[in-house]
Structure formats: structure tokens, C-alpha cells
């Protein structure tokens, strides 16, 4: 904590200064002249992506940010979490070459349990640790149409665990990926990847695509420069089918099958010497999923959608953890406009998730098998109070799950659009996070301190363990959030988005000091236990800004800045305070990102991306600034090449210390790769 406090005060947010300068300098566009161009010339007019993006957002009474396919392509990223670094309000840290801690608005961690992540409507949030195993979520990035990120609670529409944010990854329709695509890349960190995709059609109304992708990624290095043992490989294949059955009926089906493997090193605590030997491990992920969605719109203006998916996953880090999980999810939504000015949606959903978990050694979860059921219903009414000026959105979701019972999650939002280019919104909401299996009945040996050492002067080794208290029920975590936002489209070339929030968490999962005992087996040791409970409470406040500016037709700048302040309520308990500090010291207080996308000449692009993340006290991570660069060359209409340099400013830097198990602190290295993309 002290390390953070001693950091120099950051300058005023860069983005805001640029915004103010830009507003005064830019000429206003006189739209009416466009019509004089004539139809033929109009067909050639380039539409700024700045405003296209903003239009989709103009309507939302929430802090929304969209990463487009173009953003992904031109940033040179090779994975989804890497692309999320450009989103304000998200904390993205790479702690191993294939493993990421992605969180929103200050709740840091690899299993940042308050963030819901969906791919085409399928949740990839793991109910085991309540988080996302990003290493198992590789995608063919060319297929991603956009990533919509909603910071703040989205529980009323999306349900539990959409506490601090929702990441919604949406793939392109099959009609937008017709023909063939071959992609090849090779480099220093990105050792090699290859992807093949083919899209075809059957008649006018049915399109499909199939793809396969594989990659091999080099490992990172530890603090001594030695190999981190975290090489990774993945193979994934899948399809998407879109069919228009009639004017109002559409069907979509998509599915994937994948296998991924990544190395890591765990320091497994043990009460006999050497107390914590570094052991190389392999994490394996396998899975298969299938999703279908049927949408129908009726002539009375109402519409309905029915979606179903099955998802089967397997996770193993032998010999400590294996998990097999099968999930079935059904979702129905009905939208209607009962009277003028109302846009009413209601829905029902059912999820059943059955697992078989086996754990041993320092990590134990009970019971071995569990069947989790979730039933939920929501209503949502978007009311136009004053036509085109004021909208009121009220909604609530009621969930019943087999762990914690019934959880109501209401929200109310107000949107004011004084004119077509300015939007002010405010929201008050409550969201809930259902305890994961690890939050409920689990025992985790956190660490062993050898005898006669600095932290343990006693003659016996000290084992620190977090454990559940039999008979004490875990509660859901709650969030009461207040948000305020402002969006402006000053000009087709300039868009600004500001959001501020104050989140109150009245009963977070935490730890409280338990008994200290002397144990005799397998060798004598002191056992210090901490109990899992819901006694932690606190508040986070913060501010996020993003700016999209196109000073020239061929030059686009995008900046974002976020600031978050985490404060837990004072407690007299040692365990609670230690845990609170652990969480608080895991998130950077501020960060910014500036991207420059420049068309040098037709078919040649030069893109830069500068990122700064403030220091993190836990793991003693200093603040860092990094730069990525990309040169893109459209060789022929059907072939493009790009050369990408990542993390160019330092040969290596550290971002985050793994928080669940003891792993060595690893450093991300500078890397280069080349990519060829061929459409056929």
C-alpha cells in the first residue's frame, strides 16, 4: 500500500486535455452539402468509424465501450484479453504468457469474480472459481465482429455475476465471412499460429462458415531471466450457421471444440522441508459447446427469441485439480410495445450445471460433485418520458439458485438527450454475485513459513490455511451502485465518453481470523486458520474517460483513462484486514492508453499503442509504460501482411503476481511477429 501512496501524482487526464483542445480547433461539418454530391459520389464517401461506433452507444444508459474488428486488427493483438487493454475501466494484467487477470472497476484478480463474460450469448464464467480461464477462450480474432464492454452492474438484464461489468464478445454473421481465409503468423513470443476459415452459402437465405485455428506461444521469464515454464499450445475448431427462414424468422447455430495446454510452476505449500518446492505443472483445458438461437418478429411489432446451449468443459492441473462440467442453458425473451413510448422486454431463463471435481493436496473442494440450478425472470421497461429528450428505464431480475435462494436485482436509469449529439445518463442499481464453489466449501493451504525464519520465530513450521466453517452458510455478495455518465459526439470526427461511479459492497466475501492449533501429522506444525465469511465491506469510486478523434481522414487517435479508488471499512480483525489489503493492493489506481491509427498511403498502415499502468503494491509491481507498433501492408486486394512489435519499451516487464496459487512472478517479454492473411 505504501508503495502506491508514494507514487507521484499523475498529471491531469491526457484524454480530457486533448478533448478540450480539439473541440475548439475543429471546424463544424455542414451536413447539408453532402446531398449535392449526387448518388454516385455518395457511394464513395467514407463513413467515419468514430461516429458509427458512437451511434450504437448513443442510446445506452450505461458505460459502454465497443472494441471493433478494426480495433482488434490494427492493434496487432493476438488474444481477446490483450484487446481488452484498450477499454477504459478494465484492468488487464498478463501474469504468464497465456494467463490473464481481467477485472473491472477495481476488483482485481485472475478470478475477478464480478465480471461476466459471454461469447455469442454463451457464458464462459466458471462457477468453480467464479472467473474466466482466458487461456481456454482462444478465438479466431478475424471472426469477432465486436466486443461490447459494459462497465458497472448489468444484473437487471444479464443476471448474477454481472456485478462490475459485462464483456460481450459477438462474432460476425456467416454472410460477412464468405469465401476462404488463411492466416499465418510467426515470431519471437508468438512462436507460430495458423488459421483457416471457409464460408459458404446454400441458396440466398443460408450461410455458414467453418474454421480451425492453432497456436504455440513461447514462455515468459522469471525475475532472474530464467524460463517461466509457461509455454502454451491450443487447437480450436468451430462453425457458425445463419439461416433466414422467412422475413421474420431467423435461426443461428454455432459451436466450438477446443483443446489447450499451458505450462506453469506452482510452489506447493507443505509442512515438511523444503516447505514449498517449485513444481512444473501443466494446465489442460478441453471443451465442446453448441448454441442455437431462434428469433421471430411478429407483425404487431413484438419479437421473441429462444436460445439454448450446451457446454461441456474439462480442466485439469494434475494432480491437484480436475473439473468436468456440463451446462445446459435455456433463455427466452419477448419484446413488446404495449403503448406509445414503452419498450417492454421480459424473459425467463434456466440453467443447470453439473460438475465432478476432484482436488487433492493443498487445495480441496467439497463435495466432489454438485448440481447447480438457476431459474431467473426479468422485466425491463424503456419508457420515453419526453419524446427524444428523456427516457426512464426500470428493470429487475429475480433469480433463484440452489445455493443462496432468491436474489432480486433491480435497477433504474435515466437518459437525457438534449440534442442528437449529447447524452447524459444516471443509474442506480443493485447486483449480486453468487458464491462460487471455491467460496463455499473449500480448504486452501495458503502458505507455509519455515521455522526460525523472519515471519515465524517458533520451532515449528507455520501453515496458513483458509477454510470454510462447517454449518456457516455463504451469502451472495452485493453491490449497490450509483453511476453518472456523459457522451458527446461533437463532430463526426470527435466523440467523448465520460463515466463516474460509486460502488458500495456491503458484504463481500473475505476472511476472518480463526483458531491457531498445533497439529502432529504428517509432521508437527502450527496451523493458523482463517475462515471464509461475508464480513468484508467497502466502497470503490472511480472515473473513466475515452476519446475518439480523427484529426485527419487518414489519422485516428483513441485515448482512454481510468482511475479507481478502493477503500474497505475498518475492522479490528487481523485476518479481515490482511485479506482487504490483499484485494486493495492488487489493482492499479490509474491507467491510460493512447492509440494512433495512421494510413500512410492507400494500403499502408502504421499504428502505435502506448499504455501506462500504475504500480501495484502486491507483488511489488512498479508502474510500467509499454508501446506496441504495427505496420500493415495490403500487398494485393486479397493479401495483406503485417509486422507487429509488442512491449517495445522494455526487454521485459512484470504486470501481476498470480493470486490463487503461489507461482513465481513472471515477466512479459518484448516480442515481434509477422502475419500474412490471404482471402481466397
Amino acid at each position, binding site marked *: 500500500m505504501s508503495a502506491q501512496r508514494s507514487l507521484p501524482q499523475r498529471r491531469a487526464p491526457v484524454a480530457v486535455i486533448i478533448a478540450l483542445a480539439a473541440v475548439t480547433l475543429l471546424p463544424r461539418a455542414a451536413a447539408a452539402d*453532402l446531398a449535392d454530391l*449526387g448518388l454516385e459520389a455518395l457511394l464513395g464517401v467514407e463513413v467515419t*468509424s468514430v*461516429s458509427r461506433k458512437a*451511434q450504437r452507444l*448513443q442510446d445506452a444508459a450505461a458505460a459502454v465501450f465497443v472494441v471493433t474488428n478494426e480495433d482488434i486488427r490494427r492493434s496487432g493483438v493476438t488474444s481477446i484479453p490483450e484487446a481488452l487493454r484498450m477499454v477504459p475501466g478494465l484492468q488487464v494484467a498478463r501474469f504468464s504468457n497465456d494467463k490473464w487477470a481481467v477485472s473491472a472497476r477495481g476488483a482485481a484478480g485472475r478470478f475477478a469474480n464480478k465480471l461476466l463474460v459471454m461469447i455469442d450469448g454463451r457464458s464462459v464464467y466458471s462457477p468453480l472459481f467464479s472467473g474466466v480461464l482466458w487461456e481456454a477462450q482462444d478465438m479466431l480474432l478475424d471472426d469477432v465482429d465486436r466486443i461490447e464492454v459494459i462497465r458497472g452492474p448489468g444484473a437487471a438484464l444479464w443476471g448474477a455475476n454481472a456485478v462490475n461489468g459485462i464483456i460481450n464478445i459477438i462474432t460476425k454473421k456467416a454472410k460477412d465471412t464468405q469465401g476462404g481465409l488463411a492466416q499465418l503468423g510467426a515470431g519471437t513470443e508468438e512462436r507460430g499460429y495458423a488459421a483457416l476459415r471457409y464460408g459458404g452459402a446454400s441458396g440466398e437465405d443460408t450461410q455458414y462458415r467453418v474454421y480451425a485455428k492453432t497456436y504455440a506461444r513461447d514462455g515468459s521469464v522469471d525475475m532472474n531471466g530464467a524460463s517461466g515454464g509457461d509455454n502454451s499450445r491450443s487447437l480450436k475448431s468451430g462453425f457458425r450457421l445463419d439461416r433466414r427462414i422467412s422475413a421474420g424468422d431467423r435461426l443461428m447455430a454455432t459451436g466450438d471444440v477446443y483443446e489447450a495446454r499451458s505450462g506453469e510452476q506452482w510452489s506447493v505449500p507443505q509442512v515438511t522441508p523444503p516447505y514449498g518446492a517449485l513444481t512444473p505443472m501443466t494446465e489442460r483445458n478441453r471443451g465442446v459447446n453448441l448454441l442455437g438461437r431462434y428469433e421471430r418478429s411478429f407483425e404487431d*411489432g413484438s419479437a421473441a427469441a429462444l436460445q439454448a446451449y450446451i457446454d461441456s468443459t474439462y480442466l485439469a492441473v494434475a494432480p491437484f485439480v480436475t473439473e468436468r462440467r456440463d451446462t445446459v442453458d435455456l433463455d427466452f425473451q419477448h419484446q413488446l410495445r404495449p403503448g406509445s413510448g414503452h419498450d417492454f422486454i421480459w424473459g425467463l431463463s434456466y440453467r443447470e450445471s453439473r460438475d465432478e471435481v476432484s482436488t487433492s493436496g493443498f487445495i480441496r473442494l467439497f463435495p466432489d460433485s454438485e448440481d447447480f440450478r438457476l431459474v431467473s425472470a426479468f422485466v425491463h421497461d424503456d419508457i420515453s418520458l419526453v419524446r427524444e429528450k428523456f427516457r426512464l428505464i426500470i428493470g429487475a431480475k429475480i433469480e433463484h439458485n440452489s445455493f443462496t435462494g432468491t436474489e432480486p436485482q433491480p435497477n433504474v436509469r435515466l437518459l437525457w438527450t438534449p440534442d442528437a449529439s449529447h447524452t447524459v445518463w444516471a443509474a442506480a442499481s443493485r447486483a449480486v454475485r453468487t458464491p462460487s464453489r471455491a467460496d463455499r466449501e473449500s480448504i486452501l493451504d495458503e502458505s507455509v513459513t519455515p521455522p526460525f525464519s523472519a515471519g515465524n520465530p517458533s520451532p515449528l513450521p507455520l501453515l496458513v490455511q483458509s477454510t470454510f466453517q462447517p454449518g456457516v452458510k455463504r451469502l451472495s455478495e452485493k453491490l449497490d451502485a450509483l453511476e453518472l455518465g456523459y457522451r458527446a*459526439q461533437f463532430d463526426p470526427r470527435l466523440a467523448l465518453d465520460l463515466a463516474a461511479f460509486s460502488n458500495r459492497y456491503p458484504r463481500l466475501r473475505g476472511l476472518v481470523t480463526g483458531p491457531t492449533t498445533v497439529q502432529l501429522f504428517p509432521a508437527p506444525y502450527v496451523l493458523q486458520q482463517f475462515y471464509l465469511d461475508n464480513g468484508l465491506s467497502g466502497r470503490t469510486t472511480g472515473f473513466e474517460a475515452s476519446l475518439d478523434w480523427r484529426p485527419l481522414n487518414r489519422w485516428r487517435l483513441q485515448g482512454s483513462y481510468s482511475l479507481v479508488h478502493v477503500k474497505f471499512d475498518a475492522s479490528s480483525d487481523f485476518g479481515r484486514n490482511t485479506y482487504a489489503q490483499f484485494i486493495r493492493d492488487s489493482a492499479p489506481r490509474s491507467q491510460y492508453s493512447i492509440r494512433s491509427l495512421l494510413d500512410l498511403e492507400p494500403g499502408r498502415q502504421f499504428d502505435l499503442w502506448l499504455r501506462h499502468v500504475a504500480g501495484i503494491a502486491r507483488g511489488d509491481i512498479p508502474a510500467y509504460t509499454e508501446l506496441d507498433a504495427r505496420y500493415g501492408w495490403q500487398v494485393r486486394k486479397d493479401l495483406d501482411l503485417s509486422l507487429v512489435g509488442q512491449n517495445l519499451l522494455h526487454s521485459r516487464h512484470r504486470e501481476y503476481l498470480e493470486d490463487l496459487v503461489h507461482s513465481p512472478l513472471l515477466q512479459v517479454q518484448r516480442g515481434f511477429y509477422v502475419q500474412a492473411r490471404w482471402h481466397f
Partner: protein
Amino acid sequence: MAGFALGVHGQEVASDAQVKAAFLVNFAKFLEWPPEAFPGRDAPLTLCATGRGPVGAALSAYERRVVQSRELRVRRSVTPEDLRGCHMLYVGESEERQMLQILRSAAGLPLVTVSDIDGFADAGGTIGLVDAEQRVQFEVNIASAQRANVRVSSQLLRLARNTRGKLQ
């Protein structure tokens, strides 16, 4: 700078809404409505817009401009019950789920429907706006225009990227 900036490669850049509104005004130059669609020789040509998007606002900039010797009138936020008097109707992307209802209400009226909803022309709309490679293209459903008793000039069809139905 005159109006909007001229690009380095000689291309113009404008917002999506501005471009779409300009398309609507240009379409009006290539369409011929039946005489009974207008109460009088000098009656205005009415462009209507549904939905919340900014296209309606961009369209308002063309209020009182003269096209085919008629002044343009712009009506925003029209409802499906309220289409009478409209000559062209822009259906906002936000209205996707109401598309069929709107098309049904438009049936039998001398009304050209235009939208950027995916598959609009296929679903029975007259002109579909299609986003392609940072530019806007359009497709025309001739049968829909014929049902509305509106004649589409061959110049317009020539520039369309796709046409449905045949010219009689």
C-alpha cells in the same frame, strides 16, 4: 474548409447518419410518386423517420430544400399508425424488431421505405442501405416499389448493388 473536410486521397468523410440522410434526399430525385400521393401540385415531399437514431436529426437539415420542384418536409419519430402523408420512410436500425409491423402499415400507401436493417429489401422494404467497407451501398426491391405505385428510375437501379424483382 467548405462543409466537410476533403481527404488526402480526395475522399470525403462524414458521419454515418449524414451520409444516410444524404442518400435519402438523393433517392427522392430518382423516384416518381403517383399524382394522388400529393394533395396539390405544390404540395411538399415528406420524408419521415422512425426510431431513435441520429439519421432523423441529420434529415432535418434538408427541411425546405427543393427536390423535383417540391419542398422537402421532415417528420421525425413517426409511429407505424402515423404513416399517412409520408412519401419516404426511413426505418432506424433500432426498429429491427418492429420492421414487419412497419412494413405492414406501409403496405398500400404510396410510400418508399428505406432502412439499414439487415435484409430489409429482402423482407419487403423498398431500399436497403448496406454498410460495406466503411461506405454505404444500397439495394432495391423493385416489386416493393411497384406495390407502392412508385416508379424507380433506371439510373438508381444501375447504382444499386443488388436488385430484387423485375422492371415491367
